[in-house]
């Protein structure tokens, strides 16, 4: 872009900040060390605004805005952590925990799980909603990786990284509503997928124990989604 990017000034949680016009509220906040919880967002992938954890309040309207996809505007007054927002965030996390079968103590990602960490940081002490206990399979057909639907939160990071970065588009979502599930190719065992390059990017970006490397079982292995920012920089794309 030859034209100099316009700069906007706005206020987040009482702090005056400036941001480029093409930046989102989330980017502006994080640049200024204001933490907004996220789950479906990942630096380096497109944003879908699906998890609703990053909703913020904007003065002058009752509507809540997903900070990951809302661009900054001049004079915006944003609050990122009101009682109302915190209540909604806790409920969102509770809904996720109750939706499938999240049992941290027996999960490969115990201690290295973004959902678990968010539960802790948002002060979640117990799950008010009854667990729905859907019967979901585990796919261990791939020689290196495992897919456990019981721990999937449908953030679609795997779908996006596979389509946008690896370019294989092995993953997508089938069905809809509470019956939605991530799939490889024609909903076939992962190990039989013709399009999968076994690159492992999906595993690295998965925030929970839904996708894991078989060799990591029992090691509490942390995942390393930072590779995305690096890849994008090397490709000359957005940082």
């Amino acid at each position: 872009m030859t034209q100099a990017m316009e700069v906007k000034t706005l206020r987040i949680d009482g702090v005056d900040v400036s941001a480029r016009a093409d930046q989102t509220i989330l980017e502006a906040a994080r640049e200024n060390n204001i933490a907004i919880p996220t789950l479906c967002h990942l630096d380096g992938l497109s944003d879908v605004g699906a998890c609703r954890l990053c909703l913020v309040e904007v003065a002058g309207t009752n509507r809540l805005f997903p900070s990951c996809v809302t661009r900054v505007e001049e004079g915006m007054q944003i609050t990122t952590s009101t009682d109302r927002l915190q209540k909604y965030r806790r409920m969102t996390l509770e809904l996720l925990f109750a939706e499938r079968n999240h049992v941290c103590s027996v999960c490969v990602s115990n201690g290295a799980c973004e959902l678990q960490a968010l539960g802790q940081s948002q002060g979640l002490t117990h799950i008010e909603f009854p667990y729905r206990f859907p019967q979901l399979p585990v796919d261990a057909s791939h020689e290196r990786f495992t897919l456990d639907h019981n721990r999937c939160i449908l953030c679609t990071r795997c779908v996006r990284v596979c389509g946008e970065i690896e370019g294989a588009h092995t993953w997508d979502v089938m069905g809809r509503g509470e019956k939605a599930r991530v799939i490889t190719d024609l909903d076939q065992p992962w190990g039989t997928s013709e399009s999968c390059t076994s690159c492992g990017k999906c595993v690295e970006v998965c925030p929970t124990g839904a996708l894991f490397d078989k060799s990591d079982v029992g090691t509490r292995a942390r995942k390393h989604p930072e590779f995305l920012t690096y890849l994008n920089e090397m490709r000359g794309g957005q940082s």
Partner: protein
Amino acid sequence: MISVEELDQIAETVRTERAQGRHQINVCVAAGCLALHSDTLKGALAERAQSSGISCQVRGVGCMGLCSAGPLVSVEPGAILFQKVKPEDADRVLDSLKAPPAKQHTDLRQTPFFKRQFNVVLENSGKIDPENIDEYIAEGGYRALFHALIEMTPAEVVQEVASSGLRGRGGGGYPTGLKWGTVAKAHGTIKYVICNADEGDPGAFMDRSVLESDPHRVLEGMTIAAYAVGASKGYIYVRAEYPLAVKRLERAIREARRLGFLGSKICGTTFEFDIEIRIGAGAFVCGEETALIASIEGMRGTPQPRPPYPAQSGLWEKPTLINNVETFANVPPIVRRSGAWYSAMGTPKSKGTKVFALTGQVKNTGLIEVPMGVTLREIVFDIGGGMPEGRKFKAVQTGGPSGGCIPEQCLDTRVDYESLKEVGSIMGSGGMIVIDDTSCMVNVARYFMEFCMSESCGKCIPCRAGTAQMYDILQRITRGQAGERDLELLIDLCDMVSATSLCGLGQTAPNPVISTLRYFKQEYLEHIHAKRCVAGECRMAATQAARS
């Protein structure tokens, strides 16, 4: 290329034919009457007329509105309407051409069902043959298009629509003129016009009826819109459940192309526009603008966060105008007669008329069109004829799964966007279902929540997981397995799901619960505490478990 003079000529020919003193026997061939075999009836009438040497024209026409009395047959001139006509009644209908009609066929047009209505959108419904463009032209069709293209600038068309006060008839009520203006001003040489005919609300069939009865009106409205905003391509997104509407639209598009109302050099000007039909595949969420766009692009119909709005970046990221069927159907009369004429009807904030599908436990069911501002009581008790024998009114449901249930004490509410919102419902697309005391209101809420749960696209968490939890709670209440805490959770979820969901489906999914809680909380409490369903609809499974 057709000229205005030729248009006049077509209209004149149709009128002369009609004026030759020949009777016309009009048989409704819209889906409702067709399901009652009105096509067979039409055949029988034509055959009997021929064999007995009676000179008359037997035509298929669109919906006459009073679907509960179908198959409907009208005889012109004379404006006599026959109800529940069977093929064996053919002779009796034909006899009426000579003598006054038989007594069992009283003239329904004089009943409140018809007299209390005012038709703009439905002005041709039940009068013209939807499969014959000449008949639409004879009623003044495509005049508005000529007028707009030849005598108005695009900006003037936008201004005329804005001055009419027309608001989106799909349910949102967004000012149509404002929407058109935004798309017209959006940068870009490629723009699209989309007609949303994905009529998803259960209990709503306004759009189906308009498309089946008067398809050219929608095409004309879309073409005028395209001229106003600068679009050259249009799509009509129709539900797969409406095969007859698709068939009539396809035919109408072919006929319109033939006469140069679609294609290049429309009406002899340089304006180009064409329309393609896209058939939905059974997803309620595709009624949401961004999901509909995704579906036309051949993808899963999941909504996208707005902004950007389709007016700036819609189909294939181009500026896109989306209006629903009824909105477009209002456009030709507005352009033909003027925005001022239209805005003289209705209330200060809701102008014009609204089409409703009146169904449920009410005597007269069918399609009606009333000026904005009439009361719900007039609709249910005058036009609808009130409750069937022995039934007691409980509520009227408007707005489908995004709406609410309005109780007896609010029946004097006027039909306009704001008033319906105040009483906890919405205008919606026009479904109006009358509920009597044999229906349990908790179960009605459960029904709609089941709908929203299984129609949720699954993208955002509040809608996907929240509707499932709400459904579970409602299920427990109707089974007598719920406690006080469940009700608190339900209320919390209503607030959270409506505030945080990504699209309109999730944001409005709690409405049926909120409105039944507002007016029928006692029923919820009786289910929870006394394990009793006053309507007798719910089976309380676990009275013993609850006691222990």
